[in-house]
Every structure is written in C-alpha cells, then in structure tokens.
C-alpha cells in the first residue's frame, strides 16, 4: 500500500508537470518594415495644340480681309486686339508655358527623389 501511494504521488506529479517537460515555445515578435505602395501615376499626356491663324487688319486692308473671309465661306467677323494687347497676350502665354514647365519639372524631381530613394532602400535591405 505504501509503494502504491508513492507511485500514485509520482504519477500525480508527472500528470501535473508533464506538459512542461519540453518547455513552452516562445513567441517571437518581430517587425518588418513594409514600404509604402508607389503611386505610379503616368505622367500627364502632352498637350496637342491646334493651329490658329492671326489676321492683321489695318484701316487700309480691312475691306480686303473681310472680302477674303467671305469668299472662303467664313463669317466676316474678327475678334481683335491691339498691338499692345498682342504683346501682353504673348507674355501671358509665355508665363503659362513656364508655369507648366516648372510644375512638370517639380513633379519629375519629386518622383526621382522619393522613388530613387525607395529603390536604394530596397537594395540596402537585400544586402
């Protein structure tokens, strides 16, 4: 009976502690940096400008110009600007073009700076 109790006690201890013999697996927590998805917009489609024709009208050629318009089947009406306003228009056009160029250049520089860096980071991680 004494031996039976001993065996029972040992069995009871094994029953309670058996699962911990191999030890519990430790949970490993690690963080992996996930790079931000690239926006990958295509660059804006270049403009295709339509051609316009400038008529120069003076007091001397006005009749001739209107006659030619009528002969060509075009309404004999013109929307005019003075020589000074023509200079202003040319300057305004130049400024619009420059703004467009500046914005596109900025966009390219941003893309080159950030996406170029991302590529370099990828290479660093691979190394």
């Amino acid at each position, binding site marked *: 009976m004494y031996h039976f109790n001993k065996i029972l006690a040992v069995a009871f201890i094994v029953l309670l502690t058996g699962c911990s013999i191999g030890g519990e697996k430790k949970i490993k927590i690690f963080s992996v940096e996930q790079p931000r998805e690239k926006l990958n917009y295509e660059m804006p489609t*270049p403009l295709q*400008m339509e051609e316009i024709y400038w008529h*120069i009208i003076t007091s001397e050629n006005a009749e001739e110009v209107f006659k030619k318009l009528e002969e060509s089947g075009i309404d004999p009406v013109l929307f005019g600007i003075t020589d000074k306003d023509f*200079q202003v228009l040319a300057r305004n056009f*130049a400024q*619009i073009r420059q703004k467009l*160029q500046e914005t*596109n250049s900025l966009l390219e520089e941003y893309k*080159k700076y950030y996406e170029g860096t991302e590529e370099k980071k990828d290479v*660093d991680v691979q190394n």
Partner: protein
Amino acid sequence: MAIAIMLITGIAGAGIYVMKLRADNATLKANQIKLESAVEEQNKVLEQQKKDFTAILESNKKLNVLINTFKKDLQDLDKRFTKKNRDIGKLALERTKSIERIVNGGGKNAARCIELASGAEHTEEELKATLKSEINPECPALANPNYVPFQ
C-alpha cells in the same frame, strides 16, 4: 566539522561567483554585438542622409537654372517687341503681310513650346538644331537643348 562546512561554503560561493562572471560575460558579449550593429545602422543612416542632401542640392540647382531660363526667355520676348524702339503696330501698318507671317510663325512656335512644356517628345530636328536659324526662338532652352547661344 566547522572547517568542512566553511570549505564547502567557500567552494559553493566560488562556484556561484564563477557562474555569475560567465553570465555577465555573456551579457556583455550580447551588448557588444548589439552596439556594433547599432553603429553600423547609424553609419548607413548617415550615409543615406549625405546622399539625400546631395540629391536635394542638385535638384535645387537644376530648378534655379530653370527659373533663370524663364526670366531670360521673358526678357528676350520683350526685346523682340521693343528692340531698337521697335513699334510692332507701326511695322504692321507698313509691312502688313510680312508681320502677319512673322506673327503666325511666332504663334506656331509658342504653341510648340507649350506642347514641349507639357511633356511632348522632341523631334529630331529640334534636337539637332545648333544654329540660330534652326531653333525655336520662343523657347530655345526648352525646344533646342543642343543649341548654345552666342554670348
């Protein structure tokens, strides 16, 4: 008996001390490895920062050159209208047909400049242009990258 107890205690103490030293040594080794990798990472960060600063400086330089080109283009445009007290209105009265031709040519060139500014590809002709007669005078820096103006 007392000597035996002291001996055993001494040996046990020495054992515990050695074990503590070994544990300290292991900790220090681990710390050393961590420090070395931290220094390496810091060096990488510094290197990257250096590269970034260089890229920012280059980009700034490029944009400054572009903005200076804009100023020059606008000055050139003004000059074309006012050079040697030129009055385009008077010229148009005197030589209507030729001014009409020049204005239409200029308009066509200006439209092409806008196409290029919006990202259109250069034509071979534009790229090859090196003479003043071959360039787009509305925006030579943009339209004809290989043209070097005579100073």
